[in-house]
């Protein structure tokens, strides 16, 4: 492995590689001292952190996003785990589906924890949850309709939350891909819960027609977009505007997602 050749090759693609690495001289002398200090086998790791500094986000910001995702996964997992343990909740034929969902959410929790650890971060602890949201949903674990409403809101929020962070994970292709792979699983869950509730599997327009209580309306705010990538989609496709809104899920900001999640977290 010839480090100088690698840098030269990168220079062909990215003439500003040296600027990104502070300066050529600093980069090269940095490598020199690396070479003395670390075994050859460890050089890829050292290079990785250098390139990450040059091209990607700091590991910290990625860990922060993963911990944010972990909070949501904790919420979902505990929601299903507690609901399935509640004897008064009759889920009928759908019980098996929610057991599968719970297992997926637990797998996401464990996966995110190991991802955070592998990046040198510390996974946050699970918060204490109150799915009655301070008494707003007192029958959440005894009335199947209330449970289903919350489930839909959590799953659709999950889809929007991961989508909102994709660009912030782009500096780390492996993490980005894993996040996308979780994101589509949340969308599968959402589609089925929605169908169980008698809705379409996809989101039509904004909060209207979602059969959710007022506090859950932020979950669907901004879902009624018909312009994508600067293109007026109903115009170019002759597809009805409401069906165009179904064809694209919109992202949700971390602030709004946190507001939604905090309704269910005991301070």
């Amino acid at each position, binding site marked *: 492995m010839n480090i100088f050749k690698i840098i030269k090759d*990168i220079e062909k693609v990215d003439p500003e590689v040296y600027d990104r690495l502070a300066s050529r001289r600093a980069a090269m002398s940095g490598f020199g001292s690396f070479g003395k200090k670390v075994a050859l086998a460890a050089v890829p*790791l050292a290079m990785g952190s250098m390139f990450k500094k040059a091209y990607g986000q700091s590991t910290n910001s990625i860990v922060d996003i993963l911990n944010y995702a972990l909070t949501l996964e904790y919420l979902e997992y505990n929601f299903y785990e507690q609901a399935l343990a509640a004897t008064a909740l009759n889920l009928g034929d759908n019980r098996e589906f929610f057991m599968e969902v719970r297992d997926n959410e637990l*797998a996401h929790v464990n996966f995110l924890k190991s991802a955070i650890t592998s990046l040198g971060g510390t996974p946050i602890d699970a918060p204490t949850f109150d799915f009655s949201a301070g008494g707003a949903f007192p029958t959440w674990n005894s009335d199947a309709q209330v449970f289903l409403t919350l489930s839909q809101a959590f799953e659709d929020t999950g889809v929007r939350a991961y989508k909102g962070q994709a*660009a912030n994970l782009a500096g780390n292709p492996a993490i980005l891909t894993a996040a*996308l792979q979780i994101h589509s699983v949340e*969308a*599968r869950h959402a589609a*089925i819960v929605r169908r169980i509730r008698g809705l379409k599997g996809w989101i039509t327009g904004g909060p209207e027609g979602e059969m959710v209580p007022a506090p859950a309306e932020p979950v669907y705010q901004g879902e009624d977009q018909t312009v994508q990538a600067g293109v007026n989609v109903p115009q170019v496709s002759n597809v009805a505007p409401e*069906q165009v809104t179904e064809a694209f899920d919109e992202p949700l900001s971390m602030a709004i997602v946190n507001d939604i999640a905090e309704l269910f977290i005991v301070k």
Partner: protein
Amino acid sequence: MSKETKPVENEEGLGKHLQLPMQRRTFFRYASASAAAATILLTTACDDDDDDDMTPPPVGAVNLGSGDVGVLNYAYALEQLEAAFYTMVVAEAGNALTSDEMNVMMDLKAHEVAHRELFKAALGSNAIPALEVDFSSVNFNDKSSILQTAKTFENLGVAAYNGAGKLLTDTGVGLDYLLLAGKIVSVEARHAAAIDDLIAGNGRFGEEFIDEDGLDRAMMPSAVLAAAAPFITTEIDFSNLPQ
């Protein structure tokens, strides 16, 4: 894509890509994502520029192009396939499907046409032409044949977008294309789940595609296009796509 004209290199590439999720997971777990990224960089960089042994692409093939345009054309190709399929389902399968099933199919047709036309408009003069499709293997009078084909396409779409996300760069305008792909992939996943629910009932949602870490599939373009090839008559050259 016929076997005779497919470059040998792509056959190897296919096998390699199919193993990639496992490799990536291993790196992710036991080393770190940064080490994986560095290894990929090093492997590429250490590979001396021996480009002469590239097999030329088949004559008359549609070239998807390179960079983000190539990835968007790749998505456009898949959306063309899906839109053409549901257009045929809606036109021909009236007797095979219940009204609930047909309502889902009409939504899916609308969504895929919206995706297709968006890509066409966004790509402008860079857009590939309309592809010729071949649904002769589908029996449009048979519910099971229709739903199984839909299941294949939707799950392939999910895996394709999940795999292609990391190929998009769009550094100029803030990764808008990645967001766009993200807006579409979750809708494809909703479709996949709804189709599974129609096929199997009781809230099935394609669990067989979700691994023990709770992750959906991610497939690279060579594997996706190989899986889609029986339904696409037009030869597709994807050799310039980012790896």
